[in-house]
């Protein structure tokens, strides 16, 4: 662009003659802000906040009601006692599977994010695209694909049997291992992307400085890299743990009836059994448990600003 381009005329004060000066674009009139926000805000109030209120209300309905006779609001707090008594197994199992998958994702995701951030060089963008690419293929199709890979007379099981790592009638499918492996696979990008965002911002000179100060690579990692990547670790684990705990597709397709998780129960109570109060109580319980766990975890990790 030409340097000699005529500069717009300015008044001596530095403002412009024809318009009121507006050097900074923010803050602007708040009315516009509200108008821009209103459509999305109202939509979320109507279809996220109000529904949750409905869910809580439904969970307190008289459990003896039905679709045909209608439900009566009796503040039946006993529903919560009942669902904990009847379904603590699937509830704990969902949390355990979610936690195990999150841990596995953290290990695999950290290696991958670290490689992309520090070792990929000019292949960085390509590798990032490759991280996301498989996940554009349907979740269900990919999970069914794992079902095929882990099948009883499949290549993987046969190999493990030849190596005697798995008994002759041992199997992978329909075991907790298959469910956790499926969850790990399906939620890996939710871990990799926040970790990468954190690691990419990390100044490699800090690691060099640590080695100048006689830290070995392991100490350098745990004293410098790991603490600085904590924000990514926290948001990655949350983004993985929350959906993994609520998911029931992996448990249903890769597990057996012994691996039913809370999501299976909620969905079947809602759509097959039409037992709305029980299903709603389970759903509220699941979200309260997750919120409590997230708050405790974030407190512990000392990164409240993330929320």
């Amino acid at each position: 662009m030409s340097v000699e381009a005529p500069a717009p005329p300015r008044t001596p004060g530095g403002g412009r003659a024809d318009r009121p000066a507006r050097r900074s674009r923010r803050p602007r009139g708040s009315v516009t802000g509200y108008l821009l926000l209103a459509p999305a805000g109202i939509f979320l109030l109507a279809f996220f906040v109000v529904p949750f209120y409905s869910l809580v209300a439904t969970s307190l309905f008289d459990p003896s009601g039905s679709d045909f006779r209608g439900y009566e609001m009796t503040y039946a707090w006993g529903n919560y006692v009942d669902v904990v008594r009847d379904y603590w197994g699937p509830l704990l199992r969902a949390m355990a599977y979610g936690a195990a998958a999150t841990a596995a994702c953290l290990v695999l995701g950290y290696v991958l994010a670290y490689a992309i951030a520090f070792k990929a060089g000019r292949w960085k963008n390509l590798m990032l695209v490759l991280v996301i690419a498989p996940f554009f293929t349907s979740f269900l199709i990919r999970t069914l694909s794992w079902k095929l890979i882990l099948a009883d007379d499949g290549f993987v099981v046969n190999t493990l049997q030849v190596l005697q790592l798995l008994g002759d009638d041992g199997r992978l499918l329909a075991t907790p291992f298959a469910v956790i492996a499926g969850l790990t696979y399906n939620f890996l990008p939710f871990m990799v992307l926040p970790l990468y965002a954190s690691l990419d911002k990390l100044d490699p000179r800090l690691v060099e400085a640590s080695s100048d100060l006689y830290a070995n690579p392991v100490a350098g990692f745990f004293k410098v890299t790991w603490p600085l990547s904590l924000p990514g670790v926290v948001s990655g684990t949350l983004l993985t743990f929350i959906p993994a705990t609520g998911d029931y597709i992996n448990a249903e397709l890769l597990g057996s009836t012994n691996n039913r998780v809370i999501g299976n129960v909620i969905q079947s109570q809602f759509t097959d059994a039409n037992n709305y109060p029980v299903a709603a109580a389970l759903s509220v319980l699941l979200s309260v448990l997750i919120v409590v766990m997230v708050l405790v975890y974030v407190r512990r990790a000392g990164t409240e600003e993330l929320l």
Partner: protein
Amino acid sequence: MRWVRDNLVLLLGLAVLVYTFVPIAVVVLMSFNAPDSRLVYSFDGFTLDNWLNPCADPDLCSALGVSIRIGALATAGSTVLGTLAAFALVRHRFRGRSASNLLIFLPMATPEVVLGSSLLALFVASGLAGQLGFWTILIAHVMFCLSFVVVTVRARLAGMDDALEQAAMDLYATPAQTFWRVTFPLVLPGILAAALLSFSLSFDDFIVTNLNSGNTTTFPMYVWGVARVGIPMQVNVIGTLMFVLSIAVVIGVEVRNRRRQVPVA
């Protein structure tokens, strides 16, 4: 050996990346499969039949049509609402801003099964239990895509430099001209990324949809339904197509971004 030791992390990272592609490879392979039986699922022979007759099961293609229509409408709705909200949150200061941020964040931090059952509880309570179908699925999809759009567009907006817009204003562009000639083109990659994300979230959703679908069948619901009796190989054709198409779109967006960014940088 020394080379291996020096590049150990990179090799491990590549191994993880390869692992993420294993199921895709199986999907692509199976799309050319000529199975002996629908129940026993193994590679029995090569055929192009699945590719030539993708609609051998008409239910598959009608479900696919439903998913594409819902995906397109949900993408349009959530992208417009979400982009407006992102502008509000980045460019304006007003009371209740942090509450709004929280409202946007919460749906992403809620398990899908809770989102879906909440909506179902609302629809049942409003006497719409018999009306579940296309429109209730669409509402649900706009709802859960919205937050992802806001976050994506907000990140793009927040990372933008004011200087270009100020320069436009200094050069006597009206606020409308500044917006359409400077601001909008700069934010567009973010909006496109958000739209792509929305479409894939909507197209792929099973858990929320299953709770609010009534008798309407989307593509993931079709797959879920046939998974018990053995899936037709055409499902793998669709899976392969989705993979190829999304790669093409991602590359397209990337190329476009680069072209746009060169003169600015």
